[in-house]
């Protein structure tokens, strides 16, 4: 059954098999039943004839039995007509009267004893159908045999039976086909809510955990499945919420002691040790922040209708990063579009993505180097540096968590680009890196263009 995945196709296939079997068996069954009925009628008719023949048996004055058939009955049993025949036997099996020219019995006594009616195939190929009835006359029992030659098919009931198959039986096939079409329509209607639910279910993902499948319109057989699926979604949503709560709690638990530590270090007298502690604290804070960002982005949801101006985001990033860039003797610039570039996205998440790209670029740009943030419609931002660039072999791996080219360096925890990749993923976008022709790396963050906010806001 695995080849037929849809319920409709399974119904059609099974139904076709059923049609095949039914269209063979049903005419056969009807034919058999009709034959039975025809045989029954025939037997009753022959029994009647046997009784009629018996009624003309009279005991003669000499003690011998006589058969006095009226003249209008005689031709019926004549050899010339050939359709009917009779024979009268005594209890010993001796033929007393016979319509046949040779004066023989229609059936042998053994055949007649098998029942009150028998069938016999004659040598000529015709079929003799007959009954054998016992009748007492003058306290002696005689056997009256009456037969009909079915080779002469002039009996109307026989004609009906024999013409049933070619003329009537074929109608069952189109009727069954029409039934199949009706079934398909019925199934399609019955399954419509299931198809709708499937469409709804397809929309559910980590991005949209608030949707539930409709239960009211569902057929009773499928309702438990839908209920189970909805419960699974409830658990998924609860799980994501628990992770969000955990991230928020963890942020508080990690950052508050860091804040105390930082404030305490700030109260120290200026010294080389204080500066070192501050540097260490800054590195640790950075790592904690990045780990928290990664954790939060795991359960992060970008609403379908969320839109952000990528140009404004980049203005914010450059504004935010410029003091650091200048302090590190690097130049930072924003180029590209001056107009809003609307994309589907969450402004703060995009801010963090672009900020991480800029931090990465600043780390790799040489002293007096330039980091260029270039926004282009319809929805991409490139961050260019004039550092050493990224070797071909590392173009994929640099986006992995905790990946570092130089494991001995304490500065980078290798999470920044992983955050960028995760933000791109949550937004249905992508991030990639190329080397610039003149040297340096070019990171491209591509997002889905959006229509911008509704005019009212």
């Amino acid at each position, binding site marked *: 059954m695995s080849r037929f995945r849809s319920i409709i196709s399974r119904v059609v296939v099974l139904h076709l098999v059923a049609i095949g079997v039914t269209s063979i068996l049903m005419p056969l069954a009807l034919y058999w039943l009709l034959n039975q009925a025809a045989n029954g009628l025939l037997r009753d008719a022959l029994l009647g004839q046997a009784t009629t023949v018996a009624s003309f048996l009279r005991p003669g004055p000499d003690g011998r039995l006589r058969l006095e058939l009226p003249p209008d009955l005689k031709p019926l049993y004549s050899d010339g007509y050939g359709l009917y025949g009779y024979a009268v036997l005594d209890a010993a099996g001796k033929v007393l009267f016979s319509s046949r020219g040779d004066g023989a019995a229609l059936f042998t006594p053994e055949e007649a004893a098998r029942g009150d009616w028998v069938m016999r195939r004659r040598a000529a190929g015709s079929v003799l159908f007959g009954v054998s009835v016992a009748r007492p006359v003058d306290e002696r029992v005689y056997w009256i045999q009456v037969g009909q030659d079915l080779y002469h098919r002039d009996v109307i009931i026989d004609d009906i039976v024999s013409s049933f198959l070619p003329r009537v039986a074929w109608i069952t096939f189109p009727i069954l086909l029409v039934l199949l079409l009706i079934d398909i329509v019925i199934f399609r209607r019955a399954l419509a809510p299931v198809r709708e639910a499937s469409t709804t279910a397809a929309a559910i993902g980590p991005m949209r955990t608030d949707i539930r499948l409709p239960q009211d319109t569902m057929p009773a057989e499928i309702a438990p499945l839908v209920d189970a699926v909805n419960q699974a979604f409830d658990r998924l949503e609860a799980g994501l919420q628990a992770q969000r709560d955990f991230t928020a709690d963890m942020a508080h638990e990690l950052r508050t002691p860091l804040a105390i530590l930082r404030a305490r270090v700030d109260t120290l007298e200026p010294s080389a040790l204080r500066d070192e502690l501050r540097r260490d604290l800054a590195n640790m804070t950075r790592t904690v922040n990045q780990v928290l960002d990664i954790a939060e982005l795991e359960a992060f949801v970008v609403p379908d209708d969320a839109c952000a101006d990528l140009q404004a985001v980049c203005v914010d990033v*450059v504004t935010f990063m410029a003091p650091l860039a200048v302090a590190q003797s690097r130049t930072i610039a924003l180029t590209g579009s001056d107009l809003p570039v609307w994309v589907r996205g969450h402004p703060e998440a995009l801010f963090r993505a672009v900020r991480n790209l800029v931090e990465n670029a600043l780390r790799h740009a040489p002293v007096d180097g330039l980091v260029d943030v270039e926004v282009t419609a319809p929805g991409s931002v490139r961050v260019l540096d004039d550092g050493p660039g990224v070797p071909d072999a590392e173009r994929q791996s640099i986006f992995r968590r905790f990946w570092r080219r130089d494991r001995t360096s304490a500065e980078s925890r290798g999470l920044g680009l992983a955050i960028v990749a995760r933000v791109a993923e949550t937004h249905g976008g992508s991030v990639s890196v190329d080397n610039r022709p003149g040297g340096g790396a070019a990171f491209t963050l591509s997002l889905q263009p959006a229509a911008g906010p509704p005019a009212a806001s």
Partner: protein
Amino acid sequence: MRVLLVEDNGELVALLKKGLAQAGFDADAVGNAADADHAIATMRYAAIVLDRGLPDDDGLKVLREMRRRGDAAPVLVLTARDGVSDRVTGLREGADDYLAKPFAMEELVARLQALLRRPGNLLGKRLSFGNVALDVEARQVIVASVVRSFPARETAVLEILLRRGGNVAPKRLFEDQLFGLSGDVGSNAIEVYVHRLRKLLDDAGASVRIHTVRGVGYLMMEDKGG
């Protein structure tokens, strides 16, 4: 100058109070939202440093409540949950600035001073950065303790840069302030005034330098060499 510190961690409160005192602030401290509501309603503070994670409520509720009463005192929100989704909410609720834990004491002091330096606030009369200062009312520039007289537009550019000292002042701000809504601003008009101001400051021996952040604005930083 009296500020209110709303923070539940006693250890952090003690350290912050000490740091703020060194910067010339007199800080009152409360440890929960209910006390904060009460203190803000009864006392007049120059500024409020408000932690979001209070034991009885979200600090943003305190902020919303005071804004609802029409209290416009500058509020700097502190948060330990600097998450992607909660960063924006703080500013949207009417906070004037936002600082994520952990932070440097100097940063907190600088942000508070920046809030108080805003027009109409207490520190608005005299702006300073490095060895450069501006008396906003007298329009006098003081470089290395010597009073100078700069042309009006260069002084206006300096004022914007001083108010944002250490942070980028966006281009649009110069356009709005220098030329108002009247007429077109030549594409390099601002660059021209900035260039002139750079020369004036250099000649006067200023310890600050104005950096161009192309596409965004200008940034005044203390010169590392000087």
